[in-house]
C-alpha cells in the first residue's frame, strides 16, 4: 500500500508535482498515467526518498521510505534501466545490492534466472541492449522479493516480445498479492495491464478510479453518416438538437453526430425523412482521444496553438499526447 498526501515538488519555478494525493492498493496493477512532464518520475523519486518533497509526504505501509529497515525487502523499483555502472557486470551489480540489504547471494542467481540473464550475467552491463538492461533493472527490483513494486515506463523502447513479457510479469506480480505501480503516458498501454488508474496532468491529480470507469466516462461514442442528401439530414438533426459536425473525407463529406446518440436514432430519423444513407457507423472514441480530452488542460508541451483534442491529434494510434517532448 502506497499513500501519497499533498505531495508537492518544485524545481526552481516549475511545479513538477502539485498537491498530489492518491493511494495504491495491493493485489492490483495500478497505472500512473499522465502526459510527458506530468510529474510521474518525480513522484516515484519522492516515493523512494530520493527527492525531498517541498510539501506533503508518502507512506509505504504506514512508514516513510527512510523508516524502512532494509528497504529492498519492502519496495522494489525500476526507475531507469540505464542506472548501472557500464563497466560492472550484471552479477556484480546485483551482488552489491543484495549485500546492502543483507540478502543472500543465492537471490542474485535466482533473479538472474527469472529474467533470463544468467548466460550474460558476467558481461559488463554497459554492453547490454535496452531490453537486457530493462531485464537487469527488473531483476534488481525483484531482488528483495518485495511486496511493493514501482516501474517507471517499463515498456518504453522495448520490442513486442519484451512488452508482452513485462505485461505478463506485472499481472503475475499483482496476482500474487503485491502492490504494482507502473507509470506510462499511453492509456492504450495501461488499458491492457492496469486495473486501477491514477491520472495526472501538470503535477495535479486528474482522476483516481478503475481503468474501466475511466474508459467509460472518458471515451464517448459518435455516429458517422454519409448520404447524397447530407444537407437535408443535417438540418433535421440540428433542429432535433443533436450536436454534429461535417467531416470531409475521400468518399465525400460525412456527418459526425456526437453526444449521447445511437446509430438507431440516426437511422430512424433518416427513414422518417426519406433520406438515403450510404453509411451509418458507430465510432468509439479512441482511448488516446479520451485521455487527451481529460488531460487536455494539463498538457505541458504543445506543438502549436491547436487544442490537444484537435483533429490533427485525434485518430492516430498510440499517439503521444499532443506531440509531447519525450524525456
Amino acid at each position, binding site marked *: 500500500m502506497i499513500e501519497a498526501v499533498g505531495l508537492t515538488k518544485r524545481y526552481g519555478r516549475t511545479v513538477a508535482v502539485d498537491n498530489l494525493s492518491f493511494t495504491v492498493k495491493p493485489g492490483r496493477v495500478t497505472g500512473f498515467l499522465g502526459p510527458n512532464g506530468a510529474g510521474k518520475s518525480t513522484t516515484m523519486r519522492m516515493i523512494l*526518498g530520493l527527492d525531498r518533497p517541498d510539501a506533503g509526504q508518502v507512506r509505504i505501509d504506514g512508514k516513510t521510505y527512510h523508516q524502512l529497515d532494509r528497504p529492498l525487502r519492502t519496495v522494489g523499483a525500476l*526507475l531507469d534501466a540505464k542506472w548501472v*555502472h557500464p563497466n560492472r557486470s550484471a552479477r556484480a551489480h546485483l551482488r552489491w545490492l543484495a549485500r546492502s*540489504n543483507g540478502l543472500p547471494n543465492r537471490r542474485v542467481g535466482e533473479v538472474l534466472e527469472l529474467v533470463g540473464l544468467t548466460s550474460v550475467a558476467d558481461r559488463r552491463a554497459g554492453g547490454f541492449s535496452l531490453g537486457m538492461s530493462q531485464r537487469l533493472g527488473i531483476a534488481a527490483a525483484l531482488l528483495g522479493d518485495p511486496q511493493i513494486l514501482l516501474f517507471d515506463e517499463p515498456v518504453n523502447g522495448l520490442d513486442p516480445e519484451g512488452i508482452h513479457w513485462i505485461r505478463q510479469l506485472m499481472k503475475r506480480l499483482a496476482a500474487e498479492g503485491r502492490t504494482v505501480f507502473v507509470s506510462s503516458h499511453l492509456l492504450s498501454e495501461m488499458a491492457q495491464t492496469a486495473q486501477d488508474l491514477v491520472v495526472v496532468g501538470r503535477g495535479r491529480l486528474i482522476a483516481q478510479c478503475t481503468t474501466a470507469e475511466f474508459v467509460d466516462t472518458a471515451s464517448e461514442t459518435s455516429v458517422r453518416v454519409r448520404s447524397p442528401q447530407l444537407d437535408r439530414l443535417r438540418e433535421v438533426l440540428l433542429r432535433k438538437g443533436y450536436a454534429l459536425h461535417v467531416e470531409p473525407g475521400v468518399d465525400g463529406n460525412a456527418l459526425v453526430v456526437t453526444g449521447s446518440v445511437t446509430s438507431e436514432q440516426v437511422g430512424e430519423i433518416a427513414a422518417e425523412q426519406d433520406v438515403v444513407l450510404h453509411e451509418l457507423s458507430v465510432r468509439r472514441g479512441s482511448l488516446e482521444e479520451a485521455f487527451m480530452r481529460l488531460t487536455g488542460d494539463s498538457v505541458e508541451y504543445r506543438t502549436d496553438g491547436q487544442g490537444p483534442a484537435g483533429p490533427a491529434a485525434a485518430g492516430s494510434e498510440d499517439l503521444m499526447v499532443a506531440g509531447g517532448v519525450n524525456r
Partner: protein
Amino acid sequence: MSVLGAERIKLFSTKSPWWSSLATVVFVVGFGMIFLLTTASLVREDGPAVPFRVGVSTTQQGIFFGQMVILVMAALAITTEYRFNTIKTTFQAIPGRTSVMLSKALIIGLLAAVLGEIAAFASWGLGRLLVTDFDLTIRTADQWRQVAGAGLVFAITAIIGLAVGALTRHTAGAVTALLVWAMLGEQLIGAIPRVGDKIQPWLPFNAGGHFLGVGPNQNEGAQTGTDLPYNAWGAVAYFAGVAVVLFLVAVLVVNRRDA
C-alpha cells in the same frame, strides 16, 4: 556492516581502482628513486657544499605523486556514482546517506592506507638496494614516522578526495579542483612574498607532507625554512582536521540534496 560490504563490492568490481592502486605505487616508487639517485649523485660530487643530505626521507620524495593519484581515485569513487546515476540506486537501497558516506570513507581510506604502506616501504626497500654508500637504515622514531606514516597521510588524502567528489558530483570538476589546489595552489600561495611563509604551514597538503618529512620546509635534517607552529604530529592532526571538516560538510550537503 552490510553497507560496508556493499561499498567494498562496488569499489572492487570495476577496473579503475585496480589501475589507480598500481599507479599509486609506481608513482611513489618511480619518482622516489629518481629523486634519491639524483640527490645521491649530487651529494657524492659536491659533498658538504650541497644544502641537503641523503637519508631515509630521501627515499620518500615520490609520496606526493602517489597522493595525487589517491585524490583522483577517491573522488572517482563517488563522482562515477553520480555520473551513472548509481547513486540513486545506492540511496534507494540504503536511505541512510550518512552511513553510505561513512562506509565509502572507511573503504577508500583503508585502501589508501594499505597503498601508502606498500608504496612507502617499497620505496625505502628499493632505495636501500640502489644506493648502498649512504646509510638508509631506519633507526629513529622520526624515521619510522617518515616511512610508516604514509598510510595515515594517504587515508586522510582519500577522505579529502571523497569529500570534494561528493560536493562537486562531477569527475572533471572534482579532479581539477583537487589537483590545481594540491599541485599549484599551495605552491603559489607559499611563494607570495612575506605572507606566503606565514600561510604555508596552514596549507593542508604542506602540513601532511611535513609529517612525512617531504614538505617544502623539511629535508632530512637540513634546512628547515620557517619556524613551524606545530610538530610533526600537530601537522598531521591539522591535515586530518581539514579532511574531517570537508567530509562533514559533504555529508551534510549529500543528506540535504536530492539524490
